C-alpha cells in the first residue's frame, strides 16, 4: 500500500468546524443565517409522525373485510380519542351490539377493505435539533436545519459511547500517565466534562453516574468494564445512543494507555472553558469518531474570527519526520517520529511480507513497524 496510510485522529489547538445540524425528517428551521447560537439553542424543529396502531375491525365485528366501511363510526382523517367508538355493528337486538373502541388518542389513518384493518395514528411528537456547539449559523438547509460554524480547539477520540452534551472542562489528574480513580470525582464536577489520564475503571464510571458528571475523557478503559457499564458485549462499533448517565470518550484505545501528551496538554490548557462533546462512534460506512470541541470564546485570542482560521487540509500520505502513533501490539500506544520509509516489502515475525516504516521514539529507540499499524498524529 504505497499510497496507503491510516488517517489519524485530529488534535488541534485551532480549527474551524462546520456542523450540519439536520432533522431526520423535514420540519421548521428556527435559526437564521448569521445568528450566534449556543450549544443549547434549538435551531430546528419537526414533528415526528406518531406511532401507528392497527385494529382489525372486520375480525372484531365478525364481518367481511369488504363490508367494513359500512360499520365505521369514524372515517379516514377524523380525530379519535382513547376508548372512543370507531366502528360498531347494528343488530336487530341491541343486546348483541358490538363496539370497537380506539386504543389511542389520534386520528384514523386508513381503512382497508382487503384486510379489514383500520390504522390509527397517535399525535405527532415534537423533535428538536439543538446547535450542540457555540458558534454561528453559516448555512440554511430549508426544512432540514442549519450548519453551525465554530472556531475551536478540537480533540478527536478513538471510541466513545453516549450522545452529545456540553459543560465546563475540568482536569481530574495532573499527568497523562495517571489513573482517574473514583475518589478524584467530586460532587462539584456535576454537569462537567472531566478529563483523566491513562485509565479509568468501572468504579470511576459508577461514581461519575452517581455525581451526574456530563462526560468523561480518558486514554483507555478495559473492555470488561465497558461490558459491565453497558450490560452487554458491544459487537459493532456504532455508538452514540447509549444511556449510561454520561458520555465517555477514550482517546487512545482499550487498556491502560497514557493519553497522548499533545491531547492532554490541549485539554489542560482549556480547563474551565465550556466544551461540547459527543461519544458517537461509527467505524464502518462513513466513519464517525467521538470529539471534544472547545469553542474560542470572547476571552480567547482571535475570538470572533470564526471565518479566519483555516480548516485542516487533506494529507496525501505519511512522510519522514511525521509524528505517528503505533496502533497495534507489541508497541501499541507509543508515539514516535517516522525516520525511514523503505519502499521494499519486508517479512515480519508472522512471515507476512508487508510495507513497513521505521519509527524512532523519544527515548532514542527505533522499531520497524508495518505501515498499516501506525496512524498519523493530525492537526
Amino acid at each position, binding site marked *: 500500500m504505497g*499510497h496507503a496510510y491510516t488517517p489519524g485522529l485530529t488534535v488541534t489547538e485551532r480549527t474551524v468546524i462546520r456542523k450540519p445540524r439536520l432533522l431526520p425528517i423535514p420540519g421548521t428551521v428556527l435559526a437564521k443565517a448569521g445568528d450566534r447560537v449556543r450549544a443549547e439553542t434549538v435551531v430546528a424543529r419537526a414533528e415526528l409522525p406518531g406511532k401507528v396502531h392497527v385494529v382489525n375491525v372486520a375480525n372484531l365485528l365478525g364481518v367481511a373485510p369488504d363490508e367494513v366501511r359500512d360499520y365505521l363510526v369514524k372515517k379516514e382523517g377524523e380525530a379519535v380519542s382513547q376508548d372512543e367508538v370507531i366502528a360498531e355493528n347494528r343488530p336487530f337486538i341491541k343486546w348483541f351490539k358490538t363496539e370497537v373502541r380506539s386504543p389511542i388518542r389520534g386520528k384514523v389513518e386508513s381503512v382497508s377493505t382487503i384486510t379489514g384493518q383500520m390504522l390509527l395514528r397517535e399525535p405527532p411528537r415534537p423533535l428538536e435539533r439543538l446547535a450542540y456547539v457555540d458558534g454561528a449559523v453559516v448555512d440554511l438547509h430549508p426544512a432540514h436545519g442549519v450548519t453551525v460554524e465554530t472556531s475551536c480547539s478540537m480533540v478527536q477520540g478513538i471510541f466513545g459511547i453516549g450522545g452529545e452534551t456540553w459543560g465546563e472542562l475540568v482536569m481530574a489528574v495532573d499527568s497523562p500517565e495517571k489513573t482517574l480513580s473514583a475518589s478524584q470525582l467530586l460532587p462539584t464536577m456535576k454537569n462537567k466534562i472531566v478529563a483523566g489520564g491513562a485509565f479509568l475503571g468501572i468504579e470511576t464510571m459508577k461514581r461519575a453516574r452517581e455525581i451526574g458528571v456530563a462526560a468523561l475523557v480518558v486514554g483507555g478503559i478495559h473492555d470488561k468494564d465497558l461490558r459491565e457499564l453497558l450490560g452487554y458485549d458491544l459487537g459493532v*462499533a456504532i455508538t452514540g445512543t447509549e444511556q449510561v448517565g454520561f458520555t465517555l470518550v477514550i482517546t487512545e*484505545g482499550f487498556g491502560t494507555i497514557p493519553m497522548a501528551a499533545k491531547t492532554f496538554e490541549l485539554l489542560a490548557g482549556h480547563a474551565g472553558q465550556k466544551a461540547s462533546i459527543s461519544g458517537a462512534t461509527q467505524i464502518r460506512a462513513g466513519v464517525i469518531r467521538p470529539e471534544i470541541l472547545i469553542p474560542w470564546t470572547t476571552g480567547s485570542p482571535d475570538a470572533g474570527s470564526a471565518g479566519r482560521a483555516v480548516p485542516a487540509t487533506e494529507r496525501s500520505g505519511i512522510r519522514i519526520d511525521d509524528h505517528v502513533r503505533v496502533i497495534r501490539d507489541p508497541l501499541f500506544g507509543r508515539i514516535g517520529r517516522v525516520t525511514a520509509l523503505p519502499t521494499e516489502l519486508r517479512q515480519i515475525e508472522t512471515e507476512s511480507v508487508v510495507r513497513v516504516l521505521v519509527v524512532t521514539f523519544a527515548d532514542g529507540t527505533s522499531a520497524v513497524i508495518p505501515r498499516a499499524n501506525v496512524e498519523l498524529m493530525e492537526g
Partner: protein
Amino acid sequence: MTGSAQPSRQMTAAQPLHVIIATDCGSTTTKAILIEKLGNEYRQTFRGEAPTTVEAPFEDVTRGVLNSLAELEELSGRKILDGERIITPNRAAQGEPRVGVDIYISTSSAGGGLQMMVAGAVQSMTGESAQRCALGAGAIVMDVLASNDGRLPHEKIERIRSLRPDMILLSGGTDGGTVTHVVEMAEYISAAEPRPRLGISYQLPLIYAGNKDARDRITEILGGKTSLVITDNIRPVLERENLGPARTKIHDLFLEHVMAQAPGYKKLLEWTGAPIMPTPAAVGLIMETIAKKENLNLIGVDIGGATTDVFSVFGGVFNRTVSANLGLSYSVSNVLAEAGLASILRWVPFTIEEQTLRNRIKNKMIRPTTIPQTLDELQIEQAIAREALRLALAHHASLATGLKGVQQERTISDIFEQKTSGESLIDMLQLDLIVGSGGILSHAPRRVQAMLMMVDAYEPLGVTRLSVDSIFMMPHLGVLSTVNEQAATDVFVRDCMIYLGTCVAPIGRGKDGERCADYTITFGEGRSPECGTLAFGDLRLFPLGRDDRAQIELRPAKQVDLGEGKGVSVTRDVRGGEVGLLLDGRGRPLQLPTDSQKRLAALIRWHRAVDLYPGKS
C-alpha cells in the same frame, strides 16, 4: 477525473480486451488487479491495494480506487493513470505497449454493501424465499417481516420505520391465491413511511414480487410513497421458486439508486466499462460456475472485515447467506459477542488473560485496518476466524434448505425416516470442495494455516478437497465473467484457485491414541506407498503436489464411519495441492480437551504435526 473524459461504457465493452483492470471496493480495502493477455491466454499479473475511502475524511470511493491503481502502476511499470483519468484503450497500437488499459470494471461492498429489508406473507415460505432472493443478489438482509413473524402490527411498523434499508423486497402469496396477507404487509410498510439509508430526498425503492392478483392494490397503497417496481412473483406456486426476475431488479436498483447515492459512486459508475456488481453477487457467480462446470457439491466462504458470506451448491441448488456482523475487523468484536470468549480461547495455543484478549479484540475493532505483527497476534486472529467461519456456516445451514410447506410424495421408508420439508441442504458427507476467500484465508502466511482454519471450523466429514482464492480475486473475476468469459476462466484456473489438498476425516470418536483407522496411500510412479495406523487425536500431513493424485485405502475401527457405514473400508482417489493430504484423526464431532493444559498440549502437537507456525509451536 471528469466523467466526460472517460469513454462510454458501450464503446469500451465492444473493443477487444488485452489489458484489463478490475477493482473490488471492500469495506476495508480496495483491491486492484491487472489482467493481461499473454499469447493466447489471460493472466493476472499485478495487484495493488489501498484503504477504501468511502468514509470521512475522503468520502469519495474513487480516491481509494486511484490509490490502488497508483500502486498497480508502481508495481507493473504500466502507465494507467493520466492525472486522475484512467487511460483507455491501451496504446499498444500507437507504439506505447506499457500505456493504458482496455477496460476498467469493479465490484463493491463498501459503505455497508447493499442492505435490504424483505417481507413475505408466511415467514417460512414467501418470507424465506424473499430472503434467499435478496441474499442471492448480494444483499445483507436487515430483517424479514411476515404476517406470522410473532410481532404485533405496531411493532412491525416501528421496525420498518426504524430500519433504513437501501431497498425493500415485498413478496407474498402464490399467483391466484389470497391477497389479504401481502396487502396487509403493504399497509404496514405504507404506514411506516420508510426512508432510504442514503440520500434524504429520494423515495425508497421497493420491489413487489408477490401474488400478481394483488399488483393493483399494492400500487394503490405504495405507489405514491415508494419508488415501486413490480416484477414476477418469486413463489408463483408453492412448489417452485422463481428468484431470477426479482434478483435482476435488485441489481438494477442497486446501480440506479444505491450506488448513485454512495459517496463518489456516481463518478465510479462513469469510469467502469460494465455495471458495478455487489461483491457477494460476483463471488456467487464464480462459485456457481465452478460447481456447475465440475459437477461438484461445494461450500464457498468469503470472510471479510465486516461480514462473512457463505455460498453453497448442493445437488445443483445455489444458496448464499451473509452473516452481516461476523467479520475480522469492523465486526471482530461481534464474533466475540456471538461465539463467547471460551470458544475463541480454545483455539489459542498459549495462555492469555481474558482482559488482555478482550482489549486486543476491541482495539482491532476500533482500528480495523491494522495487521498482526507478532505470531501471538496472528494466532489470535486465526482463532477468531475459526469461530467466525463456524458461526457463519451454521447460519447458512439454517437458511439453505429445501422449500418449506411443500407437499411431498413419500414412500414407506421416508415415513420411517421422519423427514420433513425444508431440511438443510448442507450435507458435509456429500461435500466435494471447500473454497475459501477473504484476507485471513487468502493472505495467511502459510497455506496450511488457511487449510487448518477451514478444517477446524467446518469439520468436513469423509473425503473433502480444499482450496483458497490465491490473492482474493473472485469478486473481480465474477464481474469479469459478465464481460469476457474466456478471460475470467483463464485467470480463474491459472491464477486464482489455489488447491490446498484433501482432508480425510473419519466420523466417530475414541480415546486419544486408540486406533481410528489403518491406511494405505498409493502414490504415482517412483514413490513408495505409505502405510500406517491413524490414531484418535492424530493429525498427519503427507505432501502431495498440486498436480499429483494418490489412492487412499482406509480400514476404520468398528465404531468409525468413512461414509459407507461404521467399520466399512473405503478406497478413494485423492488430489493434492500446496499443502497435501491431511489425515484428521481428531474425531467427529471435533472436541478439544476441556482441561486447559491438555488443550494447549493438543493444539501444540497438531500445529507441529502440520508445521503450522514458525518456531514457537
